[in-house]
């Protein structure tokens, strides 16, 4: 079966639902489910072939630039295979989950149309063979994200959030776009198959390459919500929860990471760029984790946690751990999707998003609770759950490449991660019920994907464990690598997780008053965290305000200066023509009028003869005849 089917199936599903959604109604969900499931099956086959060592590449010429063909095509290598697996598998799970979650929505078919379109775009992105193609699908996933965030567009916040996401992404994308152009000028190619270490290394050292790497990274900053463009992702939580799980946790936001991993040889050849990448990743990881500590909205916590984890991946890529970053991408996709779906299940069951109104859901929602526990353990880095292995890998590559500061910051972040995740778990599922309405467990169509994902979140990390001989790392690197499990790193990592868990336990189970006192005592710190360092407000007060002012000013300028000049020229012309008119009227025309008036006066005299009586006229006629006759006869 042709891998072309992988993105094509969701596209067909999209077209079918968009055009026939009116008739399909509830059935449109199953169109989407079957399309994604089939696409998943086809992709498994392709992945199998890649594992067997046969990479896939097929392309056609899209346009010719300077007689260099720019191609569109499909290429599957190990990196793409991993992403393919994540996207199709988790995608299918989430589509199934949505069948239950979105039940009863007035725009039910449209939701699945968007989901299908997203899957198509995401798969196109993953399978891209050139930079232009990745950009094309990059924008398309952004578009789907825009649609899905603003899915409940009657809510002003949702519409605003969608736009914010799109614009923030656009800012990054402009960098990406310029990066593509500069890269093309620096190297003359856009094909990923050409971007091999040897090829790039040959041109290393040129400033334009570094610039292009940084510009390309801008795209990742936007899409993967890195500092300073991270502000859109928390707002994106206005979208339906499955969307948050699929797009804003598992797949799309990871596209930035995927892109950097794709271009890894380029970044590897530009150490300055790599440093910046690592720095931004680390700072984002830390900052987002810090914000997550005090959030009260269950989805906001998860959103910041996503940003933080993405920071981890970016940092990993920055310090040279390409396999580590990709590995974390995969594990994170599983547990974060699970977390979001769990949160969705909680929201579905409890009807609220604020954790202060939850609590004690453990008994009423057992399946959700247990899968949530698995996911929390995974993200907190408790062995042997998946997060532990990949996070360990990242820390290892940080220390391995001698980035000590980054290592320690990431370690602290790990502790914070553990703390806020367990805080979330305790606040939601433990203690007494604070909600107003009776919570209930979600239907099977939602819980089954939870269970499947929980199995994945628990076990997927083992692929990269010493027990599997670091299979995933070897697969990604394309050759067997000797990776030593560093017991020092592992120990500290486990300790950090444990500390986080312990503090959360003390704060929220043993002594529930402690957080409040703590917040009062360190109020500045608390406010900084809960207000996200006031970055939204800062942007609002600076860039956005400036932007609007420039727009208003330009318009004023247009009206008051440019248009006024035009009108002024017109008015001056009218003015001069008025002078000319005066001259014309009184001098030139005066002469004419004088002639006319003379004629008139003569006429006034002559009209006295004009009696209007026919016999007078006849008389004169006769007189005339006589005179003429006299004249004739006299000659």
């Amino acid at each position, binding site marked *: 079966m042709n891998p072309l089917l992988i993105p094509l199936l969701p596209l067909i599903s999209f077209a079918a639902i968009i055009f026939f959604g009116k008739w399909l109604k509830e059935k449109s969900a199953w169109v989407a489910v079957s399309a994604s499931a089939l696409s998943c099956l086809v992709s498994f086959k392709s992945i199998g072939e890649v594992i067997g060592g046969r990479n896939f590449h097929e392309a056609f010429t899209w346009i010719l630039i300077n007689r260099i063909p720019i191609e569109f095509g499909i290429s599957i290598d190990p990196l793409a295979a991993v992403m393919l697996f994540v996207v199709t598998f988790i995608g299918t799970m989430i589509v199934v989950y949505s069948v239950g979650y979105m039940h009863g929505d007035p725009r039910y078919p449209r939701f699945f149309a968007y989901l299908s379109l997203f899957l198509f775009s995401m798969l196109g992105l993953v399978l891209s063979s050139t930079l232009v193609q990745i950009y094309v699908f990059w924008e398309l996933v952004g578009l789907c994200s825009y649609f899905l965030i603003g899915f409940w567009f009657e809510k002003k916040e949702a519409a605003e959030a969608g736009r914010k996401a799109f614009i923030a992404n656009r800012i990054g994308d402009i960098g990406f776009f310029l990066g593509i152009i500069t890269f093309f000028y620096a190297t003359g190619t856009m094909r990923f198959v050409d971007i091999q270490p040897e090829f790039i290394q040959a041109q290393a050292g040129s400033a334009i390459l570094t610039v292009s790497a940084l510009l390309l990274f801008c795209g990742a900053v936007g899409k993967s919500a890195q500092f300073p463009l991270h502000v859109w992702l928390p707002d994106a939580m206005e979208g339906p929860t499955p969307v948050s799980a699929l797009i804003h946790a598992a797949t799309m936001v990871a596209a930035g990471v995927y892109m950097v991993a794709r271009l890894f040889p380029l970044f590897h050849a530009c150490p300055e760029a790599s440093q910046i990448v690592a720095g931004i990743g680390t700072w984002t990881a830390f900052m987002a984790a810090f914000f997550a500590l005090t959030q009260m909205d269950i989805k906001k916590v998860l959103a910041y946690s996503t940003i933080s984890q993405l920071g981890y991946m970016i940092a990993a890529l920055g310090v040279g751990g390409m396999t580590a970053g990709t590995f974390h991408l995969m594990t994170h996709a599983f547990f974060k999707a699970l977390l979001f779906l769990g949160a969705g299940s909680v929201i579905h069951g409890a009807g609220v998003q604020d954790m202060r109104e939850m609590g004690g859901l453990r008994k009423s929602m057992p399946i959700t609770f247990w899968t949530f526990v698995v996911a929390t353990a995974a993200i907190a880095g408790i062995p042997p759950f998946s997060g532990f292995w990949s996070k360990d890998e990242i820390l290892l590559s940080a220390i391995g490449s001698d980035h000590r500061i980054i290592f320690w910051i990431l370690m602290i972040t790990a502790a914070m991660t553990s703390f806020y995740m367990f805080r979330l778990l305790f606040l939601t599922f433990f203690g007494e019920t604070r909600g107003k309405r009776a919570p209930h467990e979600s239907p099977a169509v939602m819980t089954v994907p939870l269970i499947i994902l929980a199995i994945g979140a628990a076990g997927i990390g083992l692929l990269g464990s010493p027990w599997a001989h670091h299979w995933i790392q070897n697969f990604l690197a394309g050759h067997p690598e000797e990776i030593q499990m560093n017991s020092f790193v592992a120990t500290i990592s486990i300790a950090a997780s444990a500390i986080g868990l312990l503090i959360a336990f003390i704060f929220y189970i043993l002594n529930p008053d402690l957080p409040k006192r703590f917040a009062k005592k360190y109020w500045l710190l608390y406010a900084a965290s809960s207000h996200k360092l006031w970055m939204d407000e800062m942007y609002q007060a600076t860039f956005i305000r400036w932007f609007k002012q420039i727009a208003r000013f330009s318009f004023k300028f247009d009206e008051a200066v440019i248009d006024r000049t035009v009108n002024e020229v017109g008015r001056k012309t009218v003015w001069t023509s008025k002078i000319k008119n005066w001259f014309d009227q009184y001098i030139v025309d005066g002469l004419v009028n004088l002639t006319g008036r003379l004629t008139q006066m003569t006429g006034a005299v002559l009209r006295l003869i004009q009696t209007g009586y026919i016999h*007078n006229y006849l*008389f004169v006629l006769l007189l005339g005849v006589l005179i003429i*006759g006299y004249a004739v006869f006299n000659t």
Partner: protein
Amino acid sequence: MTTFGPLAAISCYAALLGILTVAILTVTVRNLFHAAIFLAFTLLGVSIIYFFLRAEFLAGIQILLYVGAIMTLVIFAIMLTSRIGDPQVPQSNRQRIPVFILIAISAFFLIGAILKASWKTISTLQTTNAVELGKALMGEFVFPFEVISLVLLIALIGAIVVARSDP
């Protein structure tokens, strides 16, 4: 040079004088209806002149058309426009005297010119008949004849249109 018997000649001159007299009466009498009667006599007189000149066909037409048709029209018009016999109403306007002077001057010149001219007349009176006239009309003068007939038609329509009471 036309020759008549003396009686015929005398009666002819008498006719000419009579015609002039009724014509003058036609243009001067106050009562318009009377003027119309005098006009009829004038026209009849002219037809008599035609007889003298041996143009019998024309004389017939003259009587039929003028005395028969046109006079009827004129009398109808007079009847329809009232205020005929009112002696209070002057029937001629104020330029009578100047007109008369002009006419007199004209007459003086015209008669002078006529008498002064040397007319190349032939000895015998030429005559013709209806057949010749008909041939001339349908032969040499067929085009003006057709035009005239068209004019007549147009005048007919025009008269109807103009005289219709509502536009």
